[in-house]
């Protein structure tokens, strides 16, 4: 890689003060996303994946204390003022949330919301903005787009609302789209359609995308690279194929094994992960996964493994006893 990546997250941490003490939601994360590439961030609830996306978008809760640097398209986002950030998020750094009602205004029609966005950010007159709105709604698979412009969000189904939210996110041709659990609230037949829609629009626009999800199945066929998060840290990061075929981090292995497989016989016992994630206000001295890990021994309980390189520089993992590699490679 010669050119700087579109997005680079450099040593980003997020601390949240809580009544029970400091909560480190994101712990020293480094990530990059190249133009036109797709990164999947996988983690369970509380793993810090959503807080990380908020840190990238500079949309953290007011009391949160971020550190590190987020470089996007050559700019250090923390140095931008509110107005510049607002412009940036509208035009080149778009987001789609799990619940489309987070981004839609319930008292404005779909048309008003789309047309206003286009007029504000693309300098279109109202007729051109309206025409473009209809094209966008048609592009995201909304039947009878003209009629939908007059409707309010509550008149649409969950899947249709998510399509509208995607249409608005795509309206200004962003360079990066962050999709935070975009299909978690939707039924499986609708989920497949929305994921296909995102993939199609991404190819067409040569847009980079970050898909945040708890479902390894969602990232498997639809990303170039995957980062697995656990207790605020990236614990394994690799090109998608390498991650699924040669995973080194025991958590990744356990997470994949715990998913019921459609081709397994009924009543097959699932290899469950015992216990539960650690309390984020009481950080462990050793590896955060060690209390639940079947390979944990010795220094796993006293020392935090840092991200180490595997066979290729693109594959990193944080483990003293990596699967498929001689123990002690990482340090």
């Amino acid at each position, binding site marked *: 890689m010669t050119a700087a990546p579109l997005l680079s997250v450099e040593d980003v941490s997020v601390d949240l003060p809580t009544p029970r003490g400091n909560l480190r939601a994101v712990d020293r994360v480094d990530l990059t996303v190249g133009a036109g590439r797709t990164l999947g961030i996988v983690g369970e609830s509380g793993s810090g994946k959503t807080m990380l996306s908020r840190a990238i978008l500079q949309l953290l809760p007011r009391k949160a204390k971020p550190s590190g640097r987020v470089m996007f398209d050559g700019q250090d986002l923390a140095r931008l003022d509110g107005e510049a950030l607002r412009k940036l998020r509208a035009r080149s750094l778009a987001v789609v949330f799990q619940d489309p009602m987070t981004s839609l205004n319930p008292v404005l029609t779909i048309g008003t919301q789309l047309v206003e966005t286009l007029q504000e950010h693309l300098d279109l007159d109202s007729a051109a903005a309206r025409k473009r709105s209809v094209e966008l709604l048609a592009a995201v698979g909304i039947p009878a787009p003209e009629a939908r412009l007059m409707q309010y969000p509550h008149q649409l189904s969950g899947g249709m609302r998510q399509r509208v939210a995607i249409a608005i996110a795509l309206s200004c041709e962003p360079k990066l789209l962050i999709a935070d659990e975009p299909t978690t609230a939707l039924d*499986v037949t609708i989920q497949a359609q929305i994921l296909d829609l995102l993939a199609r629009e991404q190819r067409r626009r040569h847009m980079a995308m970050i898909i945040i999800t708890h479902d390894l*199945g969602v990232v498997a*066929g639809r990303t170039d690279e995957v980062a697995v998060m656990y207790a605020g840290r990236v614990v394994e990061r690799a090109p998608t*194929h390498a991650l*699924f075929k040669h995973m080194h981090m025991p958590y990744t292995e356990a997470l994949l094994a715990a998913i*019921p497989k459609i081709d397994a016989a*009924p009543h097959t016992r699932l290899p469950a992960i015992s216990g*539960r994630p650690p309390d984020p206000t009481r950080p462990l001295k050793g590896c955060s996964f060690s209390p639940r890990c079947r390979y944990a021994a010795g220094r796993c309980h006293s020392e935090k493994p840092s991200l180490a390189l595997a066979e290729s520089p693109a594959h990193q993992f944080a483990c003293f006893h990596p699967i498929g590699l001689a123990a002690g490679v990482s340090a």
Partner: protein
Amino acid sequence: MTGEAPQSPARDPLLRVENLVVEYAVGGKTVHAVSGVSLEIARGETLGLVGESGCGKSTLARAVLQLRRAVSGRVLFDGQDLTAMHGEALRRMRRRVQLIFQDPIASLNPRRRIGDIIAEPLVIAGIKDPAKRKNLVCEVLSAVGLEPALVIGRLPHEFSGGQCQRICIARALVLNPEFIICDEPVSALDVSIRAQILNLLEDMKARFRLTLLFIAHDLAVVKAVSDRVAVMYLGRLCEVGPSEQLFARPAHPYTALLIEAIPVPDPDVRPAESVPVGEPPSPIAPPSGCRFRTRCPRADQRCRDEMPELRAVAPNQYAACHHPLT
């Protein structure tokens, strides 16, 4: 409306639902939530019920328990018609049938201690001796993998989602029921916790000789625990059959669509380009004939005119389709 209930392998089913119709009014309109569903569950069997949101699967569960009264049809539990029962008789019968919900935290009273929450069914059942109640509570908590001494004095908010679901399972088991309806019991839980709870349900089923109706929208989860699976769409059953067979050779186009839509955690399995089948119509105005026809690639005039009945397509497998895939 429909003909015979599809035959289950047993002659003497624990639960038999016959032509159940449930409707309710919303803003002056009628929601056709369940429209003529018949099914049977054999003793000791787990029947999985899958369908997308709004298909009527939860309404069906509530109508089985008489928490919502059916417009017509019968629910026979151990040979007795629950739809004809009222008051004390129904309450007595309900001790044999329990329900576990999707949101474990919302199903526990936040102001009551775990010990009291689990003992409450025993109080209602008339077990007056507090020592006996406490023994039963401790026994059932140990069974679900919780340490009674560390749990009974605490409040629900002190527990994680997975632990709360264990508590809900303990509460469902404390009266030693025969039949448990699990309504999306793991869909609010993380993957690593979900497997624990699914395994626990399987263990409890064996230990307490339970019969289960397991409702979920995730086919892989349903397959993991079910002997037979019923697929529901817009208030009607599309297909019923033994799990393995149904997944290997789905006969109804909707079952096939659901199976195809599951994201597979394997990068070598390219996601099949989704069929742009649109969204389910409203249960306020369901389509004529086959309710799936508006999204079905095989639909023709007959599907519009004539409602398909469940018919045998293979041994023990039944599909309601004019143009089945097998």
